[in-house]
């Protein structure tokens, strides 16, 4: 059976399947492609027209080899392997087969449905490059090459998924990244070879985690090329998945989830204070509601008299115990959050704000919840938005619930037990073998990437040797 018939069999139920035959000076050339993924213009300009221009002399000795030299297309190869041909056809290639030959010619005629580059939306920031990754892998890599045009930049490609055949690229800087980590990552990815559908890098990141059950993201995803480059320069490895506009950076420590790209572009004091603010916001968003519940339910002694009167007045109208009241309000806020994400953007915003105010106000008026609690929960939610990484923000949002329940059952002791549990959990995590709470660099600005603080550029170890401009310091300036 000829290759033509076999291909006909494979694609018998695919209505896009097109097999065009061209008769040139008596010989028949078959051109096969899937009409939706192949580019019309490339087909006609790159295959059909050159074929038609062949003179009879050439046609007589027409071989696939000769033809490969004649067709003006970017990529082309000889093949008679049915599986490979099918795969390439699915990707938009065309198959050119000369009647009665053995080998055919695979030509690259894929059509690109690419959206244009746009501003970063999820990680939008005031300073720094504004461009964001898109769904097309090659575009993303070209953005990276533009920022780091050096031969040390290594890109190795792997394929995942039996059906999806997703291309995954591991990007790192040679001599910067730890070789062991790269090979570990590679072996983990190849062990996931037969995964059923790898459609986004976030899924990949979860599958590659050291501890699959952890509550916290141990790999950082970002849509900003400059963030990825910063990471690569700090010995990290980046993962790109074709079709996903997010790159994944690993290994990371927890502090990096509270960094924003623009910290590095701000004046140092501003950058540092913003980081402190973000850390405080994180602590606030996790603990405020549970502290309120604990104080109201168990520890009336620790409230100063003035505040006590206010709290009694505000809570006395509410018929529920504080824990129930807090959980109700938290769930309500979660509902608002979730609905405003799924709504069409214009409607969503309005609905979120109006719904929040109306429901909150009405609940207070009706004596369902106390107004102080409403304020506290709003504060916590607001704080959780300050955390720059939304995956981390969501994790923090979830921790609040067990903490509120613990606070309602055990008061302050419960909160501390919960906190201790979280600390132990975090201390157990590793990201590619690197401790998640790498404690050594917590405050010192040895290198920015692990530290809580952002220091003056000059003070950071990496920057020290090469860029330091020494000024003679003998006296005050005139």
């Amino acid at each position, binding site marked *: 059976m000829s290759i033509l018939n076999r291909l006909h069999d494979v694609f018998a139920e695919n209505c896009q399947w097109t097999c065009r035959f061209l008769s040139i000076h008596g010989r028949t050339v078959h051109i096969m492609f899937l009409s939706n993924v192949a580019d019309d213009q490339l087909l006609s300009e790159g295959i059909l027209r050159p074929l038609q221009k062949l003179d009879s002399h050439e046609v007589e000795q027409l071989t696939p080899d000769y033809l490969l030299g004649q067709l003006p297309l970017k990529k082309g190869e000889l093949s008679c392997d049915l599986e490979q041909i099918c795969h390439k056809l699915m990707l938009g290639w065309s198959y050119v087969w000369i009647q009665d030959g053995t080998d055919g010619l695979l030509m690259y005629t894929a059509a690109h449905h690419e959206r244009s580059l746009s501003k970063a939306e999820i990680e939008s920031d005031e300073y720094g490059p504004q461009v964001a990754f898109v769904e097309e892998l090659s575009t993303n890599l070209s953005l990276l090459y533009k920022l780091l045009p050096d031969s040390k930049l290594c890109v190795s490609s792997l394929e995942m998924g039996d059906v999806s055949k997703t291309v995954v690229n591991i990007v790192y800087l040679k001599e910067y990244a730890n070789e062991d980590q790269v090979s570990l990552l590679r072996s*983990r990815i190849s*062990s996931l070879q037969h995964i059923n559908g790898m459609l986004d890098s976030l899924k990949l990141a979860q599958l590659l985690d050291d501890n699959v059950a952890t509550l916290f993201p141990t790999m950082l995803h970002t849509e900003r090329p400059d963030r990825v480059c910063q990471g690569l320069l700090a010995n990290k490895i980046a993962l790109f998945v074709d079709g996903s506009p997010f790159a994944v950076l690993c290994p990371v420590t927890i502090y990096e989830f509270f960094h924003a790209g623009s910290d590095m572009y701000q004046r140092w004091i501003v950058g540092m204070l913003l980081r402190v603010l973000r850390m405080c916001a994180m602590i606030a968003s996790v603990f405020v509601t549970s502290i309120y519940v604990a104080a109201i339910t*168990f520890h009336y002694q620790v409230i100063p*008299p003035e505040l*006590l009167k206010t709290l009694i007045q505000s809570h*006395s109208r509410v018929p529920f115990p504080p824990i129930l009241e807090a959980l109700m309000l938290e769930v309500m806020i979660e509902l608002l959050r979730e609905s405003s994400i799924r709504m069409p953007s214009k409607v969503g915003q309005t609905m979120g704000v109006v719904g929040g105010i109306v429901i909150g106000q009405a609940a207070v008026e009706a004596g369902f919840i106390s107004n102080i609690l409403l304020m506290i929960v709003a504060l916590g939610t607001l704080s959780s938005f300050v955390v720059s990484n939304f995956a981390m923000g969501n994790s923090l949002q979830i921790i609040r619930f067990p903490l509120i*329940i613990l606070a309602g059952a055990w008061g302050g002791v419960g909160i501390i037990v919960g906190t201790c549990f979280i600390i132990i959990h975090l201390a157990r995590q590793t990201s590619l073998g690197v401790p998640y709470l790498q404690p050594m660099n917590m405050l010192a600005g040895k290198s920015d990437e692990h530290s809580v603080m952002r220091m003056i550029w000059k003070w950071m170890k990496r920057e020290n040797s090469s860029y330091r401009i020494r000024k003679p310091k003998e006296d005050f300036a005139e």
Partner: protein
Amino acid sequence: MHINNREKKRVYFVPYILLIFLVVTGCAEAKIIDKLGILVAVGYDLADEDSNDRIRTTVLSYKPGATSTNTVPTSASNNTSKGVREKLSLRTSAKLVIGQMRVAAYGEPLARGGIITLTDTFQRDSEIGTSVYLVVAKDSAEQLLNAKNRQRAGTGDYLYDLLKKNIESGIVPSPTLHHFLNAYYRSGKDPILPYLEVQGDEILISKLALMKDDRMIGSLNLTESFSVKAMMGSNHFLTHEIELNTERLRKYYEPTFDKLYVTLSHVMTKTRIKVIDKNTPEFQVQIRLKGEMEEVSDLINLEEAEVIHALEREAEKTLKSEFEDVMRKLQKKQVDPVGFGSHYRSSVRVQDFTAEKWREMFKEARFVFDVKVTFVNVGITS
């Protein structure tokens, strides 16, 4: 690093399950603030003669669940101050809790008999803070706590604010539980408490109660109180009025009244006490008083520095005699609220320094006052 390393890592479910179990079976007793009867003030009196009980307790608590935070008084009698809770709980619907107590009042008859057993239970109780104010009430504490004040504020809060203000910038030395116990347990010092009175619809601090150990044995009037507090270290007073002798000031002005008063505001005092003779014993008390002169009761031209200095010297003389008077009174009563005994103990190596020994020595002690008054300014006119 092998891939299996990760696969073998087990998910630890056990702690999670245990955690949930513990939370569900949590048997901690909730104290939700608006369901509690939070005590703000407690008063103790001697119980009636004919009853079997020893102590009558009055408590002042926030009305539970009410939107206003007015306080309600409740009273009952029993043999111990904490045992009375049993009886009190029969009279109140909410659970009475003592953790927010701010003021503890003792009726004068009770205070004269000694209050240490009642304060001891406070320091034993972990619920109670050490910043509770202890006060002595004229006649009975019950009457004080039941009184209506002119500002119509909750009596408990009113008492607390009244005391707090007068401790920070008035003549009342800090009467917190900590300071009371600190002085009580110290061999060379005696506690001193404010003495509160109800006059009509007004609650006021009328004087200070002198305590010998834990028994009230006398009181100090306002001038004496000022002197004692001024001697107790660095203090701040909002205002103080000093009477001056007109005799020596005649050459500076024409007196229209036979007495002259100056009032100082923002008065700062600094005191240093030194033992200058170990045997007598003799103390040197150095007091530096600074203040803005706000008012003079007669017309005096204050443009000359000389005049101001003369006024300062006169003020020093008055203060010195006031200090000497109050010390004579204290020595007669053998109480030492200033803590000269502590100064003595810390500068002289004495074996077995006890309160009894010190009382004997204190009676014979001599005091040399070195007072210096400075008028920081005389206001915006001269």
